[in-house]
C-alpha cells in the first residue's frame, strides 16, 4: 500500500517535471536543474565578489539559478524557503572561467581540414574526468572548442562542468568557430594559408551561385534543401541581404537562408558576425595570417586569438588589431639569443598586460597547473591579486561575451560560487564546495578521487590490498664459492 502510494507520488512528480520542462520550452536548456523559483543561499566567512570590496560575513542569494542578492548578512535577508549552505569558516569566490580548451571531448580533432559544419556538442563527454577535475580546481565555466590541428574546425560551445547530458551542461551553444592559422600536421604554412583563404572564397562562390540560380529562375537549391529535409519555414524561408563588414554578395536577399548549404552556413554566420572566431596561432608569424583572414572577411571584431607561448613577439600587431587573446599555459618562455646563446626568460602575461591587450589564462590540463595556479604564478611575477584573478574570471567572461553572467558574484550573474578553505591562490587551500546555478554540485568531503590523490586512500573495492608476504628467516649458510651460480 505504502509502496503504491510512493509510486503514485513519484509519477505525479515526474508528470509535474515534464510539464514544467515542456512549459519552459527551450529555456530549460540553459539551467536544466534549477527550476524557476528554486532558492539557494550561501553564507560564508568572506564573500569576494571580485566586483568590489570583499564582504565579511556575507550572504549570496540565488533564485532560479541566478544571483539575486549579495551582501553582508546584516543587510541581505535569506528567503525563508531557501536551502542554505552555511559555511562561516570558508571564503566565497566566483567560479573560474576557462576561456578555451579542447578537453572533455571524445577526440579533439577532426581529420577533415575544413569542417565548420561539425559541432563539439557531438563530441563532448559529460562524464569525462576532465569536467570532474574542473570542479576540483574551481572552474565552473568552460569554453570547449575543437583542437588546434585543423584549418577550419567545428563550432564550439560554452558549458558548465556538471550534468549528465550535454544539454544539461549547456551555457551557450554556438560559442564560435575554431580556425587555425598554424599549419596542421603534414601541411606547409603556405598550404594552410591558401586552404584557409580558399574556404572563404568557396563560401563566396557558393553564395554567388545561389544568387545566379535564383536570377536564372531555377530552383535546384530549393529542391536540394527540401530533399535534405532542411527547414524552409519562417525566417529560414526568407532571404536577407548580406550583412558583412568584409565582403558582400549582391542579391543574397533573393536566396532564402534555409537554402544555403548546411556545410557553408556556419562560415556565413561567421562572416556576418553572428558567431565569434577562435583562431589558433602556433607561432608569431601566424598572427598576421589570422588577423588578415579575420579582417578580410569582416569578423575581426569578433575574433579571439588562441596563442602559443611564442606569440608574445607579435604582441604589437595584436594590440594594433585590438583583439583579445587566450594565453598558452606556459607562462614563462625561455628565449635564446641565436648569436650569444644567452637565455632570457619572458613572462608572457606581463607582455600582454603592458601592451593593454585583454588576455585570459588557460589551464595546463592534466597537470597540477590549473587556473588557480596560473593566476598565482602571475602574482609571483608581480601582478596584483586583482589583476591575476581577473585573468581567470572577468576577462575570460568578457572574451566569451558572458560579462556579468559569469566570473563575478553580482546580482544577475549565474549562481556559480566556489567555497574555498582560504586564499584560492594558495597551495594549501582547497575548493570545498562548488555551487553551479544554485545547485551544490561538488563537496570535497565526499570526493573519493580527491581523497585518493591527497590522502592515498584506496577506495573500497578498487584495488586488492595485497598483504606483505612473510619473509622467512633464511637459515642457509652464507653464500660462498657457489654465490655466482645462483
Amino acid at each position, binding site marked *: 500500500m505504502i509502496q503504491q502510494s510512493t509510486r503514485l507520488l513519484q509519477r505525479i512528480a515526474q508528470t509535474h517535471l515534464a510539464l514544467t520542462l515542456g512549459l519552459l520550452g527551450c529555456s530549460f536548456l540553459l539551467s536544466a536543474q534549477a527550476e524557476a523559483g528554486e532558492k539557494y543561499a550561501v553564507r560564508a566567512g568572506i564573500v569576494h565578489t571580485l566586483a568590489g570590496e570583499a564582504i565579511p560575513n556575507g550572504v549570496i542569494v540565488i533564485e532560479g539559478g541566478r544571483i539575486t542578492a549579495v551582501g553582508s548578512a546584516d543587510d541581505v535577508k535569506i528567503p525563508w524557503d531557501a536551502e542554505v549552505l552555511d559555511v562561516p569558516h570558508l571564503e566565497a569566490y566566483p567560479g573560474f572561467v576557462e576561456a578555451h580548451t579542447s578537453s572533455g571531448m571524445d577526440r579533439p580533432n577532426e581529420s577533415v581540414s575544413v569542417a565548420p559544419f561539425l559541432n563539439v556538442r557531438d563530441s563532448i563527454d559529460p562524464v569525462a574526468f576532465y569536467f570532474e577535475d574542473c570542479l576540483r580546481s574551481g572552474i565552473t565555466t568552460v569554453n570547449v572548442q575543437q583542437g588546434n590541428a585543423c584549418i577550419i574546425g567545428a563550432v564550439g560551445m560554452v558549458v558548465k562542468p556538471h550534468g549528465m547530458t550535454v544539454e544539461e551542461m549547456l551555457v551557450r551553444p554556438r560559442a564560435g568557430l575554431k580556425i587555425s592559422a598554424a599549419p596542421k600536421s603534414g601541411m606547409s604554412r603556405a598550404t594552410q594559408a591558401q586552404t584557409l583563404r580558399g574556404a572563404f572564397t568557396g563560401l563566396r562562390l557558393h553564395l554567388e551561385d545561389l544568387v545566379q540560380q535564383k536570377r536564372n529562375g531555377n530552383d535546384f537549391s530549393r529542391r536540394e534543401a527540401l530533399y535534405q529535409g532542411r527547414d524552409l519555414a519562417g525566417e529560414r524561408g526568407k532571404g536577407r541581404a548580406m550583412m558583412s563588414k568584409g565582403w558582400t554578395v549582391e542579391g543574397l536577399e533573393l536566396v532564402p537562408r534555409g537554402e544555403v548549404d548546411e556545410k557553408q552556413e556556419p562560415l556565413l554566420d561567421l562572416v556576418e558576425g553572428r558567431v565569434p572566431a577562435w583562431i589558433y596561432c602556433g607561432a608569431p608569424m601566424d598572427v598576421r595570417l589570422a588577423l588578415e583572414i579575420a579582417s578580410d572577411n569582416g569578423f575581426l571584431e569578433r575574433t579571439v586569438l588562441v596563442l602559443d607561448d*611564442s606569440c608574445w613577439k607579435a604582441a604589437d600587431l595584436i594590440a594594433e588589431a585590438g583583439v583579445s587573446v587566450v594565453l598558452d599555459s*606556459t607562462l614563462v618562455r625561455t628565449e635564446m639569443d641565436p648569436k650569444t646563446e644567452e637565455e632570457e626568460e619572458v613572462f608572457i602575461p606581463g607582455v600582454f598586460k603592458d601592451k593593454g591587450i585583454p588576455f585570459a589564462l588557460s589551464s595546463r590540463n592534466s597537470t597540477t597547473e590549473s587556473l588557480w595556479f596560473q593566476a598565482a604564478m602571475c602574482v*609571483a611575477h608581480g601582478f596584483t591579486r586583482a589583476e591575476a584573478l581577473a585573468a581567470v574570471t572577468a576577462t575570460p567572461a568578457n572574451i566569451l561575451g558572458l560579462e556579468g553572467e559569469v566570473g563575478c558574484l553580482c546580482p544577475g550573474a549565474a549562481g556559480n560560487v566556489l567555497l574555498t578553505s582560504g586564499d584560492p*591562490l594558495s597551495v594549501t587551500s582547497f575548493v570545498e564546495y562548488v555551487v553551479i546555478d544554485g545547485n551544490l554540485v561538488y563537496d570535497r568531503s565526499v570526493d573519493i578521487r580527491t581523497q585518493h590523490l591527497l590522502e592515498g586512500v584506496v577506495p573500497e573495492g578498487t584495488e586488492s590490498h595485497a598483504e606483505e608476504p612473510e619473509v622467512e628467516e633464511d637459515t642457509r649458510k652464507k653464500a660462498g664459492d*657457489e654465490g655466482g651460480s*645462483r
Partner: protein
Amino acid sequence: MIWTSFLHAVCLTLCAPPLQDAVVVEQPQEPEAPKAQPAVVPVVPAADLRLHAERVYTGTGEILKNALIEVRDGKISSLRPGRSAPEGVLQVKAVTAGMIDLSARLHSNFNSVEQSTEVQPHLDVAGSVDLHDKRFARLARTGVTTILVNPLDRNVIGGRGVALKTHGPMEVEARRLNGRPILRGAIGSEPSAANHAAFGRPTDFYSRRPTTRMGVEWEWRKAFFDAVAAKRLPEKDFPGAEDLREALAGKRTVMIQAWTTQDIRTAVYLDEEMQREGFGDLDLVIDAGAEAWKEPGILVRNSTIVVLPPHTAGGRVGSDGAFLAWNTASLLVGEGLTVCLSAHGAGPGSATLGHQAGFAMRGGLSFDQALAAVTSAPASVLGLSERLGTVHEGMDADLALWNGRPFAATSRVTGVLIDGVIVVDPR
C-alpha cells in the same frame, strides 16, 4: 618583424640543448675513500657581498628576521638578525638555502648509458656530463643550486652519479662535490624496456637480457653475489666488483629507482637478503618512490631514504604507472623517514622544485619539513651537510632569494647565489 621572429624561432629549434660529445668509456677506477673536499674555486673570485633579507629560513627551524648576510670567499661569513639594511645593500624578502635536486635527470639520454653490459658499477657519469648544457642555468634560475646527475636507468646498475653545483667552473672535476659516493641503478620496467629475446628475428642491439622485471632483479642479486664470490676467487673478478663490495660495506650509497610498491619491495628485499647472507648492509635510497605511501612499514624497518618524483594532478606518474598520493611526503616524514623531493629537472615555466615543496605542503607536510626535503635532507644524502642545505656561518653561500614566502604559488625565486656568486640578480 614577423621574419625576424621566424628566424628566431628557427634558430631556437636548431639550437636545442646540445647532445654531449663525450661518451662514457670504461674507466677502471681505484675506489677512493671519501676525501676532504677542496674549496671550490668560483668562476670569478667571489666578491665580498652583503645581503639583507626580511626573513632567513635557516633550515634548522629558525626564522631570522631582518638578517644581514655577509659572504666571503664563497662562504657565509656572518649572519646577523635584527639589523636594518645598510645603504646600497642587496635587499630581498626571503632567503633559504639553495635547493638540491637528487633526481634532476639532467643527463637522462642515451649518451649517458654504456650499453655493453647491464651492470656497470665502475662507471662514473662525470665522463658524460656536458657543463655547457643550458639546463644547468635553467635549474639555477629556479633556485636549485646543487644536483645529482645520474646515468639514465636503462642499465640495471648504471654507475656512479656525480653531484654538481648548477653554476661554477666549466670542468667537471673542478665542479664536482666529493661527498658520499652514490651508486645508481634501477628496478622496474625501465632497465629492460625495449630489450627482446634473440630468437625469431634478426639479432640487433636490443637482443639482450634482461627482458623482464624479474630479470632485472636477478641481475642485481647476481651482481652482488658475484662480487662477494670474486673476493675469494680472484679469477672471478670483474670490473665494478670492488664498487659493489664497497656498497655492501656501506661505504657508498645505493640509489635505486623504484616507482611502484612492487619495485620498492624488491629493492628493500634485496638489501635484506644481503643482510641475511651476511654480505653487508646497503645504504639504500629509493628514487622516484611514488608508491612509498602504500607500504611505509618496509621502508621504516630498513631506514630507507626516499626521493619522491613530481606530484601530478591525477596522481599517476612515471613510466611504470605508479600513483603518487600527495600526502606521501607527509606520511613518510611522520613515520620518521628522510624524504627528499624532486622536480625531475623542471625548469622555469613549469612546476619547479620550489613548487613541488608547495605541493607536498598541500599534502600535509609542514613548511619546515618541506624546506628540509629540498635542502638539508638531500644534502645529508650527498654527505655534504657540513657545506650545504642550511643557512649559517661557514656554509657554502648557495642561497635562493625569494620575493615572498618560499614555496607559495604566489612567490618565486628571484635571485640565486652559488658559491657567493650572484648567478641570478634579483635587482
